[in-house]
């Protein structure tokens, strides 16, 4: 007699043991090809363009202005005194500090002027020093008056606004003069 025995099907299974290997391979590819390059740099806001014939000269009183001149040999002149680039920060700091409590129209203006042949690297170093002076003043203000570290203060908080109002970073890039090339 023929017994109609139902054939037992083997368990249908997808072999997943190699799945981990495959995904590791993909993962490695993305790990290797990822470039996490953060854009870092010195931020600046340029003044609006006005044609040379419409430019007006606004007089700025001497004690508000810190003029930084860098010539093509790399000599730096800060308010008519020759100084080295690493000294800029130290020289500017007391001047910025002395103007913290003054109204906005009496704050320090740092003017940077370069020659056409000045080395770009030197210009960045000088700008770095100026920014550094401002950052130092700002962080000291944050600790002494607000009791917080500057980096802990939220970008949009009132405290940050207060710091920005009290110690605004005003760096003016001097209007280039027509020079003989």
């Amino acid at each position, binding site marked *: 007699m023929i017994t109609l025995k139902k054939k037992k099907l083997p368990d249908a299974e997808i072999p997943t043991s190699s799945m981990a290997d495959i*995904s590791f391979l993909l993962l490695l590819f*993305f790990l290797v090809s990822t470039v996490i390059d953060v854009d870092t740099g010195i931020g600046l806001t340029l003044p609006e363009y006005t044609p040379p014939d419409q430019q007006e000269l606004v007089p700025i009183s001497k004690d508000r202005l810190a003029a930084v001149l860098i010539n093509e040999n790399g000599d730096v002149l800060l308010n008519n005194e020759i100084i080295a680039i690493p000294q800029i920060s130290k020289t500017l700091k007391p001047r910025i500090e002395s103007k913290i409590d003054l109204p906005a129209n009496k704050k320090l203006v740092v003017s940077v002027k370069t020659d056409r042949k000045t080395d*770009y690297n030197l210009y960045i170093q000088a700008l770095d020093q100026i920014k550094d002076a401002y950052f130092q003043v700002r962080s000291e203000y944050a600790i002494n008056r607000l009791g917080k570290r500057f980096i802990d203060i939220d970008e949009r908080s009132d405290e940050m606004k207060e710091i920005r109002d009290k110690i605004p970073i005003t760096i003016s890039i001097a209007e280039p003069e027509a020079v003989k090339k």
Partner: protein
Amino acid sequence: MKFEKKRASTKQSIPTASLPDIVFMLLLFFMVTTTLREVDVLVSFRLPEAKAIEKIENRRLVSYIWVGQDGRIQVNDSLTKLEEIQKIMYAKRVALPNVIVSLRIDKSSQMGVVTDIQQELRKASCLRINYSTLLKI
């Protein structure tokens, strides 16, 4: 008396069934955070170094201008003449009003070319700039 080694009754294998899930999660993280380089940089440049630097938080706003060691200028993905910067950047500025222009300028450049580019940017009213630098350690 017969001594018998005690054996745990559980299966002696590390359960690997969830391994692919974990790895896929990592994979997805990297896929999402990766920004693929969109442009080929055609000029060679070495950035200057500085201490007091800021991060640009919003990458979408950034648009780059490269200046190489030889003084060639690249905007977008092609080399450009100085006079054309104004037109290109103005178009960018119209599309994205608060564009930040990141200047990736070689450190051995002279200020002449930098000033010229800045004047062009001012004419195009792209006023927010950022001198790209590396962190000095």
